[in-house]
């Protein structure tokens, strides 16, 4: 028997860690953000999402967002994220993929 020893080609990744946000059990009267990156179909999905969440959570209000930079896909800057975080209590997003 012969043995071939080789080196692992795969790089170790730099690890990042973000704690998930605390959830609230009830979104009644909450302001919910609806975020689309503006790819085709995203706004249709958010339209129906808003209708269904409005039925589920009376008093909820909704705000639409897309990122302030980009082209086919529009992305959020840090400032966009700060603004959204100030204005809503939860976000439903779509990238259409």
């Amino acid at each position, binding site marked *: 028997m012969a043995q071939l020893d080789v080196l692992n080609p795969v790089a170790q990744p730099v690890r990042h860690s973000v704690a998930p946000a605390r959830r609230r059990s009830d979104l009644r009267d909450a302001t919910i953000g609806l975020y689309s990156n503006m790819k085709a179909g995203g706004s249709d999905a958010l339209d129906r999402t808003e209708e269904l969440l409005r039925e589920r959570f009376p008093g909820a209000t909704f705000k639409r967002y897309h990122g302030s930079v980009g082209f*086919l896909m529009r992305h959020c800057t840090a400032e966009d994220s700060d603004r*959204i975080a100030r204005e809503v209590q939860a976000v439903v997003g779509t990238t259409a993929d």
Partner: protein
Amino acid sequence: MVELERRGIPTVFFTARTFVHDALRSAASFGLSGLPIAVVPMPLTNQRPQDIHVMVEGAIEQVVAGLTQPVEAVPENHDLPAADERLSYTGEDLLAAWDVMQAEFLGRGWGDGFPLVAPTRRAVDAMLAGTRRAAGDVIATLEPGFGLATVEKLAINAVMAGCQPPHLPFLIAAVQCLAEPKMYLRNKAMSTGPHAPVVIVNGPRGRAARFSGGMCALGPGAPSVSNTVLGRARRLTMMNVGHTYVGVSDMDTIGSPLKYACCCAENEPESPWAPYHATRGFRREDSTVTVHFAYGLCELHDFKSTTPEGLVGVFATAATNVAQVGTGLWLLGRRADPRYKTTEQEHNTMLICPEHAQVFAREGWGRERIQEAMYRAARMPFRTLMLNKERPAMAASHPELGWMWDHPDLPVPIVEDPGCFEIVVVGGAAGRGAYFYGAGAPVTKLVED
């Protein structure tokens, strides 16, 4: 979504079933494994509104759960790299052991489908002799997986690709190009589009390392061996160092043969103009690597034209192809990485063969005049450019251009400005070049020891 979670906002996002793995892996790379998703059967693109509504209705309970139930981290899965740095394979003889290695590497997704050279300690040490850098030096952290691109990891992948030690500094420079923030590698590596890096070598070191800018420079064959192995090493590095794995973090819907290896040198000896890298801020005597992502290529064939105007007229027909995503894409804005506040114009790279270059030069045309002529000739009716683009996206990026909708037949340039045509002299005898439909802008780096 991860950035909103970081700010204390619960999120959930719709994800097509095909993209679940990609979405979870991406969220984990950004630090939040287990980010809630609401799975829908299909991507939303190309779907009728009523079909999208049905998909949303089927996923709404996941939306509610994602926003209201605690998030639990998902354990790391088998796709993450093995911790062992050394791997052993056995067989009846070394060739049989090598077969076992091939099967395992391909099975793990560490190969491109072709046989790999075994990265033994001895071969990697020989490769490392191609640079003065230490094996442990970190060249970059390569997205999308944030892999640490140490010189040794690059050398391992260079060995696997068939590179020789003189090629390693070129791979290092190519990785530096990929890692440049304005390259926005994450976007190009993970996209559903067939983004393939085109690698262009310039300068005396390239000629010494036998990179070819002549006949069949893009391969295959003996004259372009250096081109092929550097291009291949770049791909393997994107996979094994950047963790750009198909179906995991590379969601290319159709793929591209250009992704295996796409590399050439400029044919500087037969170019009538200054070397390409000299137009990008480098000295003529410098050696450089340029990386420009491209979606595909089209031949620039013209045996007939004897004037610059004639050639431009033909070349412009290649550029005016709205099925290529970059054509007129500037109408929707610019590719932008919000993390680094970078923006890119959409460039296209033209490999002009020496004979065509001489036709231009004979009439006193340089690169800038060709760029200007292409900018004027490569125009399409506004309505045609917008056939596959979202009107709201244009309104968001260019509200000042809303008047164009009242002029649907207006000829509109396919790129934002003349400088978006990159011009490199490449190829052998006969009037045939190539037009790369680009994705974003090229990046050039110096080749250093």
